[in-house]
């Protein structure tokens, strides 16, 4: 939908709830240079969330939704879990259907949108938890990469099943004691970033959501590369503070600890030289455009 179509009918606009009037007036639809810095000065695409107080997932949602370059033409696919409690409040079409089938849904969706709108860029994103991505849905996650489906898969890695109450997951660390791992997890955290790269993802990033600029950069890169090359994958550490026994204000510290030297979430990006060159070019374009826009405003 073009930005112009995200508008209210004049004759009924003044009965619309305030949040929609604000969305139409100040959300950054149609601004390809939108980013995390808009938070606070424009209407966010998330109206509210029902996650736990201080949940890093909620801030991850805010950074992602403020960073996607084309929200007026983006569709998200989720899966069952904490993320699907947030999605009804997001000002972008999103699909929840079953647990674990998100990359199958996205494969069909992206192809259908490409067929129906051949002259438009329609970005498709999967956003699901680690249980959905790596355990029950791993077949469909990887098969979509093998098939070179052109969309971005984002995994909220909280290293366990959060919504069902903290059970062992494939992305959990070895030795961690959890429900269904009563004597500690017996095998290593699945190396999905490496698997993703070997399976055909053209851009892979693993990071925490402690630094919004890094999340923004990864989201934009993954989006651009998915449009031009094929599948991309982002794994974000969003610790479940509830299940690992942390307080509401401790999420940020947990992420910072995990990304310090030697930590399992030190930011890494995997890509080919070709993709590296493409990203460089694309970011130079972005920079030039922003500079010009600034010059015009000044």
């Amino acid at each position, binding site marked *: *939908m073009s930005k112009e*179509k*995200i*508008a*209210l*009918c*004049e*004759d*009924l606009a*003044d*009965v*619309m*709830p*305030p949040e*929609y*009037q*604000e969305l139409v*007036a100040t959300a950054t639809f149609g601004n390809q240079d939108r980013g995390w810095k808009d938070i606070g000065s424009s209407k966010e695409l998330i109206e*509210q969330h029902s996650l736990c107080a201080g949940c890093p997932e909620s801030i991850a949602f805010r950074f992602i939704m403020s960073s996607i370059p084309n929200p007026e033409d983006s569709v998200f696919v989720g899966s069952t879990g904490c993320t699907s409690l947030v999605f*009804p*409040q997001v000002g972008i079409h999103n699909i929840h259907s079953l647990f674990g089938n998100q990359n199958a849904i996205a494969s069909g969706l992206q192809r259908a949108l490409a067929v129906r709108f051949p002259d438009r860029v329609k970005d498709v994103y999967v956003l699901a938890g680690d249980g959905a991505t790596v355990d029950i849905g791993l077949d469909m996650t990887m098969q979509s990469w093998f098939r070179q489906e052109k969309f971005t898969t984002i995994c909220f890695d909280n290293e366990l099943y959060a919504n069902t109450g903290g059970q062992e997951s494939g992305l959990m660390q070895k030795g961690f004691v959890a429900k269904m791992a009563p004597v500690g997890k017996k095998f290593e955290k699945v190396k999905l970033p490496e698997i993703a790269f070997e399976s055909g993802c053209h851009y892979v990033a693993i990071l925490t959501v402690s630094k919004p600029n890094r999340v923004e950069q990864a989201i934009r890169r993954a989006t651009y590369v998915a449009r031009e090359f094929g599948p991309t994958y982002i794994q974000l550490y969003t610790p479940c503070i509830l299940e690992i026994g942390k307080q509401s204000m401790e999420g940020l510290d947990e992420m910072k600890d995990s990304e310090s030297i030697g930590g399992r979430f030190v930011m890494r990006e995997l890509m080919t030289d070709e993709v590296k060159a493409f990203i460089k070019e694309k970011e130079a374009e972005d920079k030039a455009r922003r500079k010009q826009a600034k010059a015009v405003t000044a």
Partner: protein
Amino acid sequence: MEEQYQVLPGPEAFLPPAAASQGIVLPDPGQAHIEGRLVDEEEAYEYAARKLLGGKVPTIFPGPLVLWKWNEKAAKKASAIRRLANALPARLIPMADYRPKYPKIDPAVEINPNHPNLTIWHNKIDVCIFVGVHCHQANLALKIIRGGTDCYTIAMCAQAGHEDACLSFRDISPETIDKLAATVERLKKEGVESQAIPFEQFVMSREGVVKGDV
């Protein structure tokens, strides 16, 4: 011979049946239904106009398809809905989207398809119009309203109509909404008076309610 099911205001049941499963069939083009009875749509204009004029709190619930200017026809429908609201007069309470909002909903200024009864109860709405709501969501809301309230429901549907409303038009357009407004005007001229309790339509801004009754 089984008795023909009638689609009447409730409260009908703990979980009322969908009218379609009780044998109520949707109207064909050119027709409408009144309480499950298929009629020529002309008859329904007159019947609906009288019902609306006879209500104490007649209310129009415009849905996303007419609140958002996603095409020119939507804008025209919105204008026609405003004219109809003014002609009656009727309150306008939007169904802005379909996400479950309970318990955060403010029933004075919005309605939600997952718990529409809250808005009906809060405002004591006795007759209402659904227009511009996706059919599936409208059917859920209409049936829940029938289950738990005594509100008379009217559907102005752009597709095939709704058996779960007490009265339903189909294939509506800006022109047919205007036609209902014109029927209201004619009846008023003929001496049928609006029974609506006087009210001032609320006006909303980005900050909240600016004026009007809530």
